[in-house]
């Protein structure tokens, strides 16, 4: 039994050795991915349902503390430390993230979901005064909106763990609206037009690995790179995948470089675990070294600064894998507690991201009534624009009439004053003549 298991696990290693012996590495030459590797990577697409819960932390390196502004670094570190769960099934996706804020604040919980019809975003803290009073309260808030009213490039789902482990999940709205499955990052790149630059073998911590170098032929829009001297260059990504044949070609290391070969990120994954019922292994631990950062004012232009050493490290530790099928309603967020603030933009008449605002009443029986009243108010507000047109025209006409009347008044007044002056002058002249 043990022997057969060993044989099963060692078989891919033997296979990759045979593949590599047969095909010695030829850098800078286009290569086809060996069928055995392709078949192993295709298996990711078969994962029907998966929920992964992980703990993520971020720590700044001495170089990061030197090169990155303190407030920006604080933001990176504090935003990069949380416990997150990401689940997907049949085109639906759900994310829950818990972040520990300042010591006196309660943990912040954020949930984002997509049930193939609507997007949902919820949070437990309602920052009434935001920066002004800095007093977050435990008032849940829920926002629902239609995908058509959001930007196709908008992305709300953070998938750091999956990125680090070389699994591509759709995160942008336009991707989520299509029929999708998880994909191996390498296959996703190739499907987008990327190409394999080289295939070879490598050894890492005593593991014999299958190495694939690929480049992305799809330059990301508006993306410019800046080196330490601050000069901008044409963007292009180079990927270095280190697959471990011992674990179904799971990724042990993934490096992303720019066109000049400068390292942007390096992910190292360990502690592989086979998903129950699937021939897929996923790592329990990932360490991501980040060598770039975008300044706050430069963020919109996406100009990144690149350094030879990492600026900060992201540590990801998986707490649990769950392959049970999640029911559909777990991908929907519903306001159940009284007092929840809801921004409901799920109605067909809503044209933007913001919709009908209401608060869930203490008596749940009154919820529909509250929604109906607020929805009527919303419709009244939307209709106001149409109703305001005649009023606007009326006031503009009245303005014109007022201006004309004023002008006439001034002219008449001046005319009268001049007339009086002439009469007075005439009288004076007559009197002088008489004298």
């Amino acid at each position, binding site marked *: 039994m043990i022997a057969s298991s060993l044989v099963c696990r060692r078989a891919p290693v033997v296979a990759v050795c045979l593949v590599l012996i047969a095909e010695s590495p030829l850098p800078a030459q286009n290569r086809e991915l060996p069928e055995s590797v392709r078949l192993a990577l295709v298996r990711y697409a078969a994962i029907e349902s998966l929920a992964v819960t992980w703990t993520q932390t971020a720590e700044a390196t001495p170089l990061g503390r030197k090169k990155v502004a303190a407030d920006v670094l604080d933001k990176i570190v504090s935003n990069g430390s949380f416990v997150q769960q990401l689940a997907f099934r049949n085109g639906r996706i759900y994310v829950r993230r818990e972040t520990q804020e300042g010591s006196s604040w309660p943990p912040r919980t954020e949930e984002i979901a997509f049930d193939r019809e609507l997007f949902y975003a919820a949070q437990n803290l309602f920052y009434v*005064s*935001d920066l*002004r*009073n*800095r007093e977050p309260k435990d*008032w849940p808030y829920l926002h629902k909106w239609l995908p058509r009213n959001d930007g196709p490039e908008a992305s709300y789902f953070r998938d750091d763990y999956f990125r680090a482990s070389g699994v591509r999940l759709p995160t942008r709205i336009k991707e989520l609206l299509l029929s999708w499955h998880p994909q191996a990052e390498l296959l996703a790149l190739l499907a987008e037009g990327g190409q394999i630059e080289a295939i070879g073998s490598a050894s890492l911590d005593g593991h014999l690995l299958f190495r694939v170098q690929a480049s992305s032929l799809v330059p990301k829009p508006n993306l410019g790179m800046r080196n330490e001297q601050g000069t901008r260059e044409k963007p292009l990504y180079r990927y270095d995948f280190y697959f471990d044949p011992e674990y179904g070609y799971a990724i042990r290391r993934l490096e992303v470089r720019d066109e000049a070969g400068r390292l942007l990120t390096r992910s190292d994954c360990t502690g592989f675990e086979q998903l129950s019922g699937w021939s897929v292994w996923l790592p329990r631990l990932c360490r991501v070294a980040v060598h770039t950062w975008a300044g706050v*004012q430069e963020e919109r232009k996406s100009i990144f600064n690149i350094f030879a050493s990492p600026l900060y490290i992201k540590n990801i530790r998986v707490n649990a894998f769950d392959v049970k099928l999640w029911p559909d309603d777990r991908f929907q967020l519903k306001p159940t507690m009284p007092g929840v603030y809801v921004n409901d933009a799920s109605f067909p008449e809503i044209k933007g991201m913001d919709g009908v605002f209401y608060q869930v009443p203490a008596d749940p029986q009154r919820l529909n009534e509250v929604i109906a009243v607020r929805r009527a108010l919303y419709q*009244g507000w939307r209709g106001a624009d149409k109703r*305001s047109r005649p009023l606007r025209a009326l006031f503009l006409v009245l303005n014109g009439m007022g201006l004309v009347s004023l002008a006439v008044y001034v002219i008449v007044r001046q005319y009268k004053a001049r007339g009086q002056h002439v009469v007075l002058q005439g009288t004076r002249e007559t009197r002088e003549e008489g004298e």
Partner: protein
Amino acid sequence: MMAWWSKPLSLGLLIYIWTSGIVILGASFGHQFVTPPRAASAPNFYEKFSAYDGGWYKWIAVSGYHYDPGQQSSTAFFPLFPLLGAVLMRLTGLGPTWALLLVSHVCLAAAFVLAAVYLHGRRPPPDRTALSFTLLALGVMPATFFFRMTYSESTFLLLILLFLLGIQRNWPLPTIALIAGLASACRPVGVGLLLPLLLYIWRRSPDRRAFLLRAALFAPLACWGLLAYAAFLYLQFGDPLVFAKTQVHWGRTAPSLTTKMLALLSYQPIWEIFLWQPPANWSVFAWEQVNPVYFAISVVLIFVGAWQGRLNAYEIALAAMLLLIPYLTRAYEMNMASSARFTAVVFPVYLIIGEYLARLPPAVSAVTLGLSTFFLGAFSALFASGYPIF
């Protein structure tokens, strides 16, 4: 002989104390008895005086300025008021709310005294009743409750009155320009003092050449506060205009300049809000509806006062600028939000109200003031209990 209580100092202070008492009582009532629209954000009573923008000033006094192009930033709030609060905090060890409240109230008390002095010096001199009614109007008009909160309005009012007094008493040009400059460090509309200043220069200049020379010299001086703030922002954040740029995070964005101008010319921001809801939902306690009405009434009062010759040229110029600047710059974007507060500092409005109240039968004046006092207390209560009064 003038009774002790009708002298400017005592009369101003008396009216300040009485009318501020109404606001404090109203806030106390709101704190204890009015159900807040959501869970209370500040447990202490005195913290109720620093809601909404008052919180921003507190933040600046404690932590200084910050700017984030992606969200509302404290750079929108001018520095004089929080700076005075911060200085007081360091000198006395007071907390930010108490320090800012102290600044607010000292400025307001001084403003009442200056208003009384200014009224005594007006030509023709107002009778005693009109003078008292003017000060009472300044104390009990509903939006004046902001003077007693951690807001910069009372500091700005004090500077406006000092400016008007300087003109009335023919103070030297540099002094008046310096006061106007200080006002421009207090609130963005401080630059509105430029117009009455130019008028003053014009009247004091023997010829056009002298006017141009003096205007070129004193107009920049009258903006020194704004220029100093812009220089600080440039040094701190690399952009002198971030105080204006961060405004995009407050309110809506106009689709085009034409749309905005058409809306402003047709007074759309004033009446639009009433179309959003059926008349059955209109309410005198809904501050978003009070804002445009308050503004419109003030405009009408200034217009009528000017037409009837009850205001001098400086008062008209000052009122026009203080009403026009916020209307042209923010009324469309903010749906007239805060316009009642912006209007509260237009001192000439109180001159007109005072004169009309003095001419009305005493009973009618008393009821009018009583009604206004009721709303002053009511809005103080609603503000203190967390309702969106801003």
